[in-house]
């Protein structure tokens, strides 16, 4: 089926601060994204596998697996390897991040601009690649 369907891009927000997740989710919804929130590393990896988001905003310091370990596990799996990740953290220690990084507290306008460079608001579905992913997801489930 080569027909393309347009849908809003899905963003997985991973942060142990629930208020931050809720407000960020609202902001990104307003900016044209669909958001899901999880609050620890282990759930982040599971959600990335199950929901196949189009982008992940990943906090670094979290319970049950910090951002770096989540990132490494996502990169190990062929199913999640391609998902773009943006790190966010309250620590600004100038460390070289392996993915785009925005430090807290961020200006939402800036965050949206960053995110748009990583993930378009609209995703075209139905291409060969996408179908392959869907099939695999079906098997996995």
């Amino acid at each position, binding site marked *: 089926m080569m027909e393309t369907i347009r849908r809003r891009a899905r963003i997985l927000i991973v942060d142990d601060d629930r208020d931050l997740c809720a*407000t960020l989710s609202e902001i990104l919804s307003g900016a044209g994204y669909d958001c899901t929130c999880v609050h620890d590393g282990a759930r982040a990896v599971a959600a990335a596998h199950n929901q196949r988001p189009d982008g992940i905003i990943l906090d670094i310091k979290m319970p049950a697996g910090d951002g770096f370990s989540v990132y490494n596990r996502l990169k190990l799996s062929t199913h999640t390897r391609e998902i773009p990740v943006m790190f966010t953290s309250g620590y*600004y220690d*100038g460390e070289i991040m392996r993915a785009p990084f925005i430090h807290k*507290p961020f200006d939402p306008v800036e965050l949206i601009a960053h995110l748009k460079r990583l993930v378009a608001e609209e995703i075209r579905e139905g291409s060969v690649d996408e179908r392959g992913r869907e099939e695999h997801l079906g098997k996995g489930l």
Partner: protein
Amino acid sequence: MRGLHLNDKSTILVLRWLTILLAILLMLYSRKGLTFGTGAYLLGVAFFLSNIIFTLIPRKHFAKPAVSSVIVIMDAGFISLAIYLTSGFNTDFYLVYFFIILIAAMRQELKGSIVTGAISITLYGLLIYKSSPHFYILKTPFLIRAVFLLLIATFSGYLAQRARVYEEARNVVQKKLSEVEEKLLRSERLAIIGQLAAGVSHELRNPLGVLQNCLYLLNLRFKDADEKLRKQLAIMQRELTRSNRIITDLLEFSRKQKPSLAPTNLNRLLEEILSRVQIPERVQVVKKLTDIPTVMADGEQLQSVFMNLIGNGIEAMPEGGVLTLNTGQDDSSVKVTISDSGVGIPKENLEKVFEPLFTTKTNGIGLGLAITKRLIEYHGGMIVAQSIPNHGSTFMVTLPVSDERGACPTE
């Protein structure tokens, strides 16, 4: 507690009072049954009075070589007269010569003690000869006394000299030790602040992030609200930004980042900063940038250094004034001077301005200059502050010149 110092006025006076005591004891218990004339008593009183006068001389004058020479000569005279007025060789007053030799050793070390010893022996010999002409001066007892006087003079002078050398060395070591101790305390304090800062900052950045998000959403919702509400939202934004800046300063301070060095043109860096900083109309900027060599530096760190100094300069001139940027060089370093004609820094605060958490501003936490100083020290440079209250302040940054010398155009 202060130790007994060899050059001390009190030591000398104690010795002199002891001399008087010894003289009295000698008078009372001399086995020869000495008889004293009026002259001897007058001499004793004179010595006593001289000691009272010396007691009254202020300590700083007491240390002068002229005063000590007068004391030694007077003492030698007193003793010789005492010997002369008593019974020559038979009297034990010669023992007092040891005291003046010791005093001389303490005041003028080896040179003083030997000269005093020689004077003592000569006077002693002359007076004995004068008081009893039939006395054979080169008889063994006198020679033994003379040799002992000379030996004591040499030995005490030598000891005094060594004591001084040791004391000087000890002072140097002690000074160094206290410097190291102070540095250690300082770095310990800084490390604690750093740890605390890093911990607190992370915890605060999350809630600040949430507030920032809420403010963003509120701004969206009240896009068309009345001016009053918009103004209040703007105030919230300003305060949020300020809180964030404080946290960033704290984190910056707790960070121990080594500079990544590259040849840096300071004149160009200053020009860049000036083009980025908002300079109020009330402030006039005067640039006196001369050709200076490039320095090996971390451009970003130095940018934060000069940005902070320029910002401080501008803030110090709320009524307006002149901000002067000066670059120059000497043999092995380049100097960047940033002066303002502002309110200045009171003398008592000038030493503290580089200390972390010291501030006189209402909107700062006192880390700006502490960070600045640290960054400059990372580069092997130094920063000095000078200020005249109500006339302005000058901050001079000195940085070592890189090995590869190349002229740095003024542009």
